[in-house]
């Protein structure tokens, strides 16, 4: 009896992960804003990007940020749909769109980050 009342597969895990990733994103977002928008140039010039991207740890943070952002965002969108009593085919279609779209954009983001060359560009004096 209690077996079937377990909340293991009812979305409880996704609920916990939504909170954990959310908290992580708050921390990452503060860093992102300070780094990228402290000065207009730091977010908008190629040199600044290359300079940051020459640190592997920065790339790792960026990849984490990207993955967590899409996971949290798309899981949130799925959460909205879960509020409505949708038909099964519709659920499957929506999940497919979200998962495929998410994987496509995460992969695109990864490929952008990996394509940025290592090394510092000599900036104009």
């Amino acid at each position, binding site marked *: 009896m209690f077996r079937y009342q377990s909340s293991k597969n009812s979305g409880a895990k996704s609920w916990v992960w939504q*909170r954990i990733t959310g908290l992580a994103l708050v921390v990452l977002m503060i860093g992102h804003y300070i780094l990228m928008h402290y000065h207009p140039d730091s977010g908008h010039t*190629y040199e600044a990007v290359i300079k940051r991207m020459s640190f592997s740890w920065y790339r790792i943070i960026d990849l984490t940020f990207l993955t967590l952002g899409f996971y949290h*965002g798309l899981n949130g969108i799925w959460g909205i749909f879960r509020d409505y009593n949708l038909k099964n085919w519709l659920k499957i279609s929506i999940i497919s769109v979200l998962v495929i779209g998410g994987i496509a954009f995460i992969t695109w983001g990864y490929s952008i980050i990996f394509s940025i060359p290592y090394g510092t560009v000599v900036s104009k004096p």
Partner: protein
Amino acid sequence: MPEITPDKIKTFDQKEWIKENLSYHKDTGSWAWIFHRLSGIALIAYLFLHVYSLSTLTHGKEAFETKMQAFLSPPFLIMEWVLFIFVLFHSLNGVRIVLVDWADGARYHKQLYVFSWIVGLILFFVMGFIMFSHEILKFFGK
């Protein structure tokens, strides 16, 4: 005693779902829920756009900086600034949700909601001043 039949019970009218939803009495939690949802949708939409807009990084310096110049124009700056209030509210209210779920937040969730807005709006206007300081100071003739 009058008999209660299913047709006499007030249920959710699916055809009038917008009207039904709007008719609900809304308190702190419902407003927080509505704003959290709207800001969340805006943020994930922006995230897709963000990856797209940075894709020119693969095409070298010129392509990237040409695109970035476009984002430094006033309409985009204002849109970026508005995006910041979505980020702020979603972050602060997100912390509020975690406190309600995992800590003693249910006792002071209303104060946390007000706190989210106050801190959010203060940071929003500070950011506005930082972003548009040049224009603001020029306006006041400094």
